[in-house]
């Protein structure tokens, strides 16, 4: 039998621990709820801002000259679990193209890639990095310096989009291998999505 004092010490330790667990649980629950509320309130505005400041310049970079307005004519195509936003473009030479966004995992988290594909020739028109949280000056060069992403322009969809170390056709940026791989992965994903959804997209564009 423990003595009375020891028993009380045990009870106090137990109470202290339960107290800690309860406080932390309540605090994190409250914080999670608050963040969810703020997020749902700001979501629409943030999507509009991303469209204006990230997607629009990316699309403009991929298709410098279009005879239509890809942003205004955007439509959604259903994939297995989400909806994909498609930006249709009519190029100045009469060819039809589309742009849509895919993502890969970079050094600092998710990395968005806008991919433009020519519907007539099935080639990549161009790609641009949109939202990212890569290291400034290192991984962020994927967005600021076009020499890396311009490698993708004009490539057919039979190209292996992977860095050369992985047996692909893409020169990685020195010092930013993870970012280069993330961009390649996003491009590969875009290729797969395109091959699966092309009939549906063409149908919707008519």
């Amino acid at each position, binding site marked *: 039998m423990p003595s009375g004092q020891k028993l009380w010490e045990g009870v106090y330790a137990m109470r202290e621990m339960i107290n800690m667990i309860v*406080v*932390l649980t309540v605090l994190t629950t409250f*914080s999670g709820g*608050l963040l969810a509320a703020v997020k749902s309130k*700001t979501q629409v*505005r943030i999507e509009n801002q991303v469209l204006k400041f990230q997607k629009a310049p990316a699309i403009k970079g991929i298709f410098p000259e279009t005879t239509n307005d890809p942003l205004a004519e955007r439509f959604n195509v259903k994939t297995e679990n989400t909806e994909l936003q498609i930006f249709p473009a009519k190029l100045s030479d009469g060819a039809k193209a589309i742009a849509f966004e895919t993502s890969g995992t970079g050094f600092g988290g998710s990395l968005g890639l806008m991919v433009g594909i020519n519907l007539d020739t099935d080639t990549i028109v161009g790609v641009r990095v949109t939202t990212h*949280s890569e*290291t400034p000056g290192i991984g962020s060069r994927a967005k600021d310096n076009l020499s890396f992403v311009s490698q993708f322009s004009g490539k057919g969809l039979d190209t292996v989009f992977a860095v050369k170390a992985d047996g692909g056709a893409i020169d990685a940026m020195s010092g930013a291998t993870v970012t280069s791989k993330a961009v390649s992965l996003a491009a590969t994903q875009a290729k797969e999505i395109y091959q699966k959804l092309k009939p549906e997209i063409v149908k919707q564009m008519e």
Partner: protein
Amino acid sequence: MAQSLAKEFTKGLWAEIPPFRLVLGLCPALAVTKSLENGIGMGIALTFVLVCSNLFISLLRTIIPSKVRIACFIVIVATFVTIVELLMQAYAYELFLTLGIFIPLIVVNCIPLGRAEAFAYKKGPLLSIADGLGLGIGYGMSLSALASVREILGNGTLTIWGGTPAFTLGPDFLPFKFLLTAPGAFVGLGLMLCLMNLIGKK
């Protein structure tokens, strides 16, 4: 009461002004002060986080068990930092693009955490708000001062808000590019601290 409130508020503006006197929050101070706009933006973001986290930690100071207080502080600070990040994305996206990674880093830049531990956990809510407001505004002022010097001398422009420079030094001005680099920021910071010490000595 009003006197001590004023004291806690004004100490953040000179006697304990971050990052010069407190020497906390140096990382964003060096990184974002390439233009005045960024300095102001960072100051506003930090003031909001500091006031809110100080208030909540002070209100909860009797409830938070001292053994897990750091974990609780981080949860509270991180919540408000995420709120600032979301609000900035929704209402000032261009600023978010340039401040980018330094907003989430407010969580670990030690000013909110340091104030929570050294002040808000021991004092009442009103004093804590005054402390947070003073230090936040002080930080914004320091960043703005440093950013103005760096932007004017390093780039020949001064951008107050909205991305377009409020004024530009003429084409004859040769920008002192060194000030825009990270070592330039250190030198600028050191010179300003030196100036502050000279004034304080009198």
